[in-house]
C-alpha cells in the first residue's frame, strides 16, 4: 500500500468513534472495577474490599469448573468447525448459477436471532416431538438432552456447528476464489496432486481469512450465552453452564456485585490474552 502521511488532524476523524466507544466501554468497565474492589450491604453503602473478591473467584471451584467447561466447549467447536468449513469451501463450485444459491442458503443460520436458534434446537431435539430427538431414539440410543449431561453437550455442540460453520465456509471460500487461475495451471503442469495443491497453494492463500475465522470463532464461542441458555438453561445440573451463563447468574440472579465484578474482569482478561496469543502465533511469519 501507499505510504501514509503524518497528520495529527486525523484525530478529528476518529474522535466520534472514540467518544461513542469510550462511553460504552470505559464507564461500564469502571463500574465493574468499582464493584470488584468493594463490599456492599445494600442501601448503596460500599466498603473497601481490596483484592479479596479476586482471590475468592480465582480459588473457587465453581469458577474453575465453568472455565473448564468453557475451554472444552470452545476447543471442541474449533476442532470441528474450522476443518469442516474449509472442507466444504473446497468442494463448492467456483462459478455458475449455484454459487449465489449456496451462499444465501449457507448464510441463513448466521442471521437468525440467537434466542430463536436456541428455541429452534430446543424443539428440534426434544425426544418426543422433535425430529432429531425422535431419530436418535429410533436408532436405539437413549437420548434426552434435558436429563443426560452427555446428550446436552452433544446437542449444544451440534447446534453451534449448525449455527456457525457457515461463517468459516464463507471466509474460506472468499480466500479460495481470490486465487488466480494461473496458480492452478502451474500446479497442473508440475503434476501436483490434490493434497499438494491444497498444502502449497490453497492453504497459504487462505491463511489471512482463516486467521480471522479462528479469532472470531474463538471470541464468539468464548462469550456464548443466549443459545445454550435457551436450549438447556445451563443444565442438566450445571453441566452446560459456561462462563457467561454463570456470570449472569451471579450478577443478575444473586446480585453478588463484588464477585461478579471480579469474575467479569478475570473473564475479560482471559479472552484478551488468548486472542492476543492466537493472533501473534498466526501472524508471526507475516512480512511487516
Amino acid at each position, binding site marked *: 500500500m501507499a505510504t501514509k502521511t503524518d*497528520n495529527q488532524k486525523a484525530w478529528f476523524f*476518529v474522535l466520534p468513534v472514540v467518544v461513542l466507544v469510550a462511553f*460504552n466501554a470505559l464507564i461500564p468497565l469502571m463500574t465493574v472495577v468499582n464493584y470488584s474492589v468493594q463490599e456492599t450491604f445494600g442501601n448503596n453503602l460500599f466498603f473497601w474490599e481490596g483484592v479479596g473478591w479476586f482471590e475468592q473467584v480465582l480459588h473457587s471451584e465453581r469458577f474453575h469448573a465453568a472455565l473448564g467447561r468453557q475451554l472444552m466447549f470452545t476447543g471442541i467447536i474449533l476442532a470441528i468447525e474450522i476443518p469442516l468449513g474449509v472442507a466444504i469451501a473446497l468442494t463448492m463450485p467456483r462459478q455458475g448459477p449455484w454459487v449465489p444459491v449456496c451462499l*444465501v442458503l449457507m448464510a441463513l443460520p448466521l442471521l437468525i436471532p440467537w434466542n430463536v436458534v436456541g428455541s429452534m434446537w430446543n424443539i428440534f431435539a426434544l425426544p418426543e416431538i422433535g425430529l432429531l430427538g425422535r431419530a436418535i431414539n429410533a436408532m436405539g440410543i437413549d437420548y434426552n438432552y434435558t436429563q443426560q449431561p452427555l446428550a446436552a453437550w452433544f446437542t449444544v455442540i451440534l447446534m453451534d456447528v449448525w449455527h456457525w*460453520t457457515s461463517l468459516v465456509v464463507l471466509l474460506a471460500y472468499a480466500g479460495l476464489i481470490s486465487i488466480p487461475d494461473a496458480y492452478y495451471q502451474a500446479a497442473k503442469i508440475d503434476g501436483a496432486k490434490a493434497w499438494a495443491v491444497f498444502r502449497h497453494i490453497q492453504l497459504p492463500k487462505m491463511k489471512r481469512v482463516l486467521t480471522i475465522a479462528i479469532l472470531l470463532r474463538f471470541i464468539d464461542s468464548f462469550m456464548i450465552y443466549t443459545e445454550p441458555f435457551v436450549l438447556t438453561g445451563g443444565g442438566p445440573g450445571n453441566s452446560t453452564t459456561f462462563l457467561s451463563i454463570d456470570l449472569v447468574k451471579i450478577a*443478575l440472579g444473586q446480585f453478588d456485585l463484588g464477585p461478579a465484578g471480579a469474575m467479569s474482569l478475570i473473564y475479560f482478561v482471559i479472552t484478551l490474552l488468548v486472542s492476543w496469543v492466537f493472533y501473534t502465533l498466526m501472524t508471526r511469519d507475516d512480512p511487516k
Partner: protein
Amino acid sequence: MKRLIPLAPALYIAFLMLPIYWLLNMSFKTTNEILGGFSLWPNQFTLDNYRTIFTDPTWYMGYVNSLTYVTINTAITLVVALPAAYAFSRYRFLGDKHLFFWLLTNRMAPPAIFALPFFQLYSAVGLFDTHLAVALAHVLFNIPLTVWILEGFMSGVPRELDETAYVDGYSFPRFFARIFLPTIKAGIGVSAFFCFMFSWVEMLLAKTLTAVEAKPIAAIMTKTASSAGYELGLLAAAGCLTIIPGAFVIYFVRNYIAKGFALGRV
C-alpha cells in the same frame, strides 16, 4: 468417491435446512397437535399462529422495535466509522496503532460483563427502554468490526485517487462524498450487512436495556414461552418470522458476500 465430492455442499445445506423446516412445520400446527404426537408435516394445517402475531400489537410491535434499533445502530455505526476508517487507512497520527487495537479489544468483551453496568448507565442518563439505548449499546461491538472492515477496503484504494481529486480542485467533503464513497461501496455494503447481522441477532443486551416501549421480539418470545403455558405453535411462528429480515438482507448483498470478504480484510 471423487464423483461424490460435489454432493458435500448439498448435504451440508440439507443439514442446515432440517431444523428450519422443523420450526416451519411446527408453526403451521396447533399447540395441541404439536404436543399430541409426532408427524413430519401438519395434519391440521392452520394459520392461526401467524394470525395472532399479525393482529396482536404486543407481538408485531416486537418486530418493529427490533428493526428500529437495528436500523439506528447501522446508521450511527456507518456515519462515525467511515471518517475514522479513512483516518486509519490514510494518515499516521499520535497513538494510531494503540487506538486501533483498543477499538478491537471491545469486540472481544463478553456482553455478559456489560449487562448490569449498561442497565445502570442507561438508566442514569434517562435512555432506559428506548430504541436509542439498544442502538448505542450495540455500537460497542459493531464500531470496532466496521472500522476494521472499512479500513481494509480503503487501504485497497490507491492514494493517487485522493491526490488526483485535489489537483482537480475537489474539496475534501466533495471528494469524500462524490468520489471516495462510490469507490468503496462494496465495503459499505459488507459493513452494513455485518452491523445488521450482529445487532439483529444479539439479545442479552437488547433484553436488559428494555422493558415495554422498545422491547425486542426476542424478549417477547421468551416471555410467552414462560407465561402463557407453553404455546409452541405461536413460538415457532414467531421464530420463523424472525428469519425473514435476515433472508432479505442476504439476498441483497449476495453478490458482495464472497467478493466482499476477499477484497476487504474480513
